[in-house]
């Protein structure tokens, strides 16, 4: 599974805001640009991002293998027709041009995920999205990340309990209803307690925001992001 892994690479040291901007700029550049020769160049850039984050192409491919299987169905199934002529290669090629664009975007996001802890993205959100909405979004992301393992553990126990009482023999609808009701009830009880705990710790609209600062290299990253986002102008 691909998650944040502490490290000392250049990608790890970059400001999260610049890295987020590059991802979106990169996606714009890839989806709005032509397939040849632009796409191979973008793929090379994406592989460069992976290497900067200390991640091999193989690991990125393995992390996203299910998506890659779905993508590979594009040209295969796209070329097949029900009835004559049975195979239309040019349709498959159309599909290939389309799905191939997703691969470099996946690589760049793999580099980001591998090199950026969730709390830095949270800081980037709080420092970029203005006002109360940004504050709720930032704190909300941090809290959601914190509660995922707690809820996962709840669901595991509920499934075990339902299994232990012969739940496997019940019809699907009954079983699924039981599991989701219990999981939901437990989550809502946790929400009530979390709500009290947040208030007790003076949860405020105007906290000290997490430390983030731009180094010279981060400005270069931002310039790259801007350049990528504007690259579709080249093809007008």
């Amino acid at each position, binding site marked *: 599974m691909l998650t944040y892994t502490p490290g000392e690479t250049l990608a790890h040291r970059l400001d999260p805001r610049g890295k987020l901007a590059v991802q979106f700029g990169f996606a714009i550049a890839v989806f709005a640009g032509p397939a040849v020769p632009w796409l191979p160049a973008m793929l090379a850039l994406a592989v460069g991002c992976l290497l900067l984050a200390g991640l091999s192409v193989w690991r990125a491919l393995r992390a996203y293998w299910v998506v890659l299987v779905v993508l590979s169905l594009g040209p295969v199934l796209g070329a097949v027709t029900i009835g004559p002529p049975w195979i239309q290669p040019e349709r498959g090629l159309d599909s290939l041009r389309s799905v191939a664009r997703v691969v470099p975007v996946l690589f760049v996001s793999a580099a980001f995920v591998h090199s950026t802890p969730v709390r830095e993205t949270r800081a980037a959100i709080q420092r970029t999205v203005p006002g109360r909405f940004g504050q709720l979004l930032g704190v909300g992301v941090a809290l959601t990340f914190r509660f995922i393992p707690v809820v996962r553990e709840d669901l595991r126990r509920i499934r075990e309990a339902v299994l232990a009482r012969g739940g496997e023999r019940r019809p699907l609808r009954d079983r699924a209803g039981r599991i989701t009701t219990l999981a939901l009830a437990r989550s809502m009880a946790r929400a009530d307690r979390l709500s009290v705990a947040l*208030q007790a710790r*003076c949860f405020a609209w105007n906290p000290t925001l997490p430390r983030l600062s731009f180094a010279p290299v981060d400005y270069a990253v931002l310039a790259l992001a801007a350049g990528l986002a504007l690259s579709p102008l080249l093809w007008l």
Partner: protein
Amino acid sequence: MSQEYSDSVDLVNAGTVAYLSGAVLIAALTAVLAQFSIDLPGGVPFSFQPFGVFFAGVLLGPIWGGFSMLLYLLVGIAGAPVFSNGTAGVGIVLGPTGGFLISYVFAAAAIGLVAHRSLDPVGVDDLPAVGVTAGLVVGSAIIYAIGVPWFAEVQGWTLPRAAGFMAPFAVGDAVKIAITVGIVAGGNELLERP
């Protein structure tokens, strides 16, 4: 000595904190349910992910329900392995099934709007089953209306071909709507909140 903060600290009011907490837990629940499915006869997976979207709208109403799904999306973009098969990152959101993920924000908001018929949610006990059912049907329609064309676009397929490919996955949706209505409508002591 604590006097010094009193004027400067702008506390978030209790109602907002309660809804934020609810949105956080539903987002976390959606993330966990997305990793969980039961195989139906014939090997089609019965995914639990839609329940998160359904509960977000029904329990939290349009605004906080939509917000909850936005949190789910963002925490995945930030790198938590919350999308199907434990994946994460912008690449998934922009990939073939990304339309479904993005549609959750709108679906939860629409479910909340139809079920509660107001921007401010009412208590779950007071929701009529017919309103909840209508909301969930509208929400499911939105999920497919955004998800399938997006899938077709990324795969470079025609819309009918994409729809045909997705159809088996929709098998369980009517069942999921029925289960959700059964859980929330007509009062559920497990979900009563103080």
